């Protein structure tokens, strides 16, 4: 059933459209938001199962044969990402029910949330570069609105940096597209892959590769292009931060992996070495930036940067094991990072601040929250046997296999520094005493959580925490999935065959 491939894009669109129709009925939008996310997740999982069983699926939209029309393609990597996006969408939308204020809810929060999910799913499932650009813009536009919704001063300042740098990134991406079309007369990724492999001026290919690296590097917050991220991710309401942290930079990583496995693989020694160096620098600067921070969400934002370094590291090493490691890392990271942001939101809800020096004693006040934080934070740092340990182990083993000792050492050292930041949060917010004399800017009145709020806030965190444990204790099936996805990426013949119906 090939129509299945369109559903992860269509369902969020329909949900968002209905949310807009019921603009004045906030309670209807809340129900629609959750139902739409459930349907999105179900179709994404269904798609994952059918791709796993039957191989790569492709459809030509409007029946225009490839490479002339727009193609939608689902290989294992893209469906894994779609499932993760749908899962995070569902978790965050449930969390929003209790954490989002009614003002934002009635200004179209759920509609834009689903437009965002539509854009993200579109990026993952398209097989055409120009179409990818359009989905990027759908995603960016909704993220702009979500970031600025509410119009608080710091939100607007953060949004300006986010919007400007993302527009520049889109501009560079579009420039690269224009040149690519001028050279080859096609923008279908499978067709491009054939034509670039078929022989093209190396200089131009390398120039284009670097343009794509910069454009997607801004989106995935690579060194030295990451400055928009820590300036903006801590400004919106926590549910928005959580979905951004979970998905948006990973969309950039997805496109990087896609482009640098399918299109630009002629000069691996040159392009992928650059990627590897950037990966190391991204890891180190991100983790050092985090050490200098004293605010819950700012620390987590800097850790996104350092973690993106690990994902790119697998791409830079460019061996089957390393790519599998990258994909495994993305699966682990999206779950853990979203969960940590959700934890920070509950901590703020209980004690009124994100500042570490105003938090404390959560260990006694909220034991369940403490356990969830512990699982996620230790997993992020890579403590065995949690999911982060396996993810780092695969990447380090892959780099040792090809005697890339420097990057392996960097990865291990950064893991240690991550543990330092996490124990800083642990010591200040969970273990230590809460300071009595609270400074200005802290909401003094903390209503205790109602039972319904408790369910909506804790259910997503518990599910994500259990998933982290599952990936940790039963990593074999997840690793096998990642390995299959990496094999498909490294041998694009099946991909090209699925899209064009022929192999060169």
């Amino acid at each position, binding site marked *: 059933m090939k129509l299945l491939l369109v559903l992860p894009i269509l369902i969020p669109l329909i949900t968002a459209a209905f949310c807009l129709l019921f603009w004045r009925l906030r309670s209807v939008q809340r129900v629609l938001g959750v139902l739409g996310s459930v349907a999105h997740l179900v179709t994404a999982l269904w798609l994952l199962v059918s791709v796993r069983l039957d191989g790569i699926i492709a459809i030509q939209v409007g029946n225009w044969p490839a490479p002339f029309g727009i193609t939608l393609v689902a290989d294992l990597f893209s469906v894994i990402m779609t499932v993760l996006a749908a899962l995070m969408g569902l978790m965050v939308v449930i969390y929003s029910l209790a954490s989002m204020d009614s003002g934002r809810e009635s200004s179209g929060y759920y509609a834009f949330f689903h437009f965002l999910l539509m854009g993200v799913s579109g990026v993952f499932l398209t097989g055409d570069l*120009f179409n990818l650009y359009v989905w990027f813009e759908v995603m960016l536009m909704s993220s702009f609105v979500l970031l600025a919704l509410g119009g608080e001063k710091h939100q607007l300042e953060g949004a300006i940096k986010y919007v400007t740098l993302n527009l520049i990134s889109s*501009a560079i991406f579009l420039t690269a597209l224009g040149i690519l079309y*001028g050279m080859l007369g096609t923008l279908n990724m499978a067709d491009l892959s054939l034509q670039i492999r078929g022989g093209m001026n190396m200089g131009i290919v390398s120039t284009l590769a670097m343009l794509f690296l910069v454009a997607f590097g801004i989106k995935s917050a690579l060194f030295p292009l990451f400055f928009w991220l820590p300036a903006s991710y801590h400004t919106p309401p926590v549910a928005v931060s959580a979905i951004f942290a979970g998905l948006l930079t990973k969309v950039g990583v997805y496109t990087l992996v896609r482009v640098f496995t399918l299109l630009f693989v002629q000069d691996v020694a040159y392009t992928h070495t650059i990627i590897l160096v950037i990966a190391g620098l991204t890891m180190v600067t991100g983790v050092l930036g985090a050490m200098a921070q004293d605010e819950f969400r700012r620390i987590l934002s800097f850790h996104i940067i350092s973690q993106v370094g690990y994902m790119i590291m697998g791409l830079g090493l460019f061996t089957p094991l390393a790519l599998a490691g990258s994909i495994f890392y993305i699966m682990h990271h999206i779950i853990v990072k979203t969960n940590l942001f959700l934890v920070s939101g509950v901590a703020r809800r209980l004690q009124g601040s994100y500042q570490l020096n105003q938090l404390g004693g959560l260990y006694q006040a909220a034991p369940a929250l403490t356990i969830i934080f512990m699982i996620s934070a230790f997993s992020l740092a890579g403590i065995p046997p949690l999911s982060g340990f396996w993810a780092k182990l695969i990447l380090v083993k892959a780099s040792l296999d090809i005697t890339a000792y420097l990057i392996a050492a960097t990865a291990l050292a950064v893991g240690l520094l991550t543990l330092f930041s996490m124990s800083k949060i642990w010591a200040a917010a969970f273990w230590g005493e809460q300071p009595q004399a609270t400074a200005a800017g802290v909401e003094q009145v903390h209503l205790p959580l109602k039972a319904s709020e408790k369910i909506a806030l804790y259910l997503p965190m518990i599910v994500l925490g259990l998933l982290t444990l599952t990936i940790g204790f039963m990593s074999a099936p997840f690793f096998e999935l990642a390995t299959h996805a990496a094999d498909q990426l490294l041998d694009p013949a099946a991909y090209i065959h699925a899209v064009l119906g022929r192999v060169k």
Partner: protein
Amino acid sequence: MEILAAIVVGGLFGAGVYLLMSRSPVRLIIGLVLLSNAINLLIFTAAGLIRGKVPLIPSDALRAVEVTADPLPQALILTAIVISFGVLAFALVLFSRTFKTTSATTLDEMKATDT
């Protein structure tokens, strides 16, 4: 013709990037506008400028007999224009709203959320 277009594209890119680097929010927006126009022209030029050859196939032929203009870049540019129109309109509103809230006239005054 291509050379002339290439010079215009280069000039627009230069002006756009120059304006992006200034401190004033208004110049930043104008820079983004110039940049998006430069890219549209770039796509148009890179895909080849062919004048007076309509991409129509005679009814008795299966394919075009001579080289015709490529209609696809214009479709791409049209899409890009629509998107950049929407995005830049949003950016303008965002900047004006920010000015009303913070009354900051240069980007240097918007450092509160930086690290």
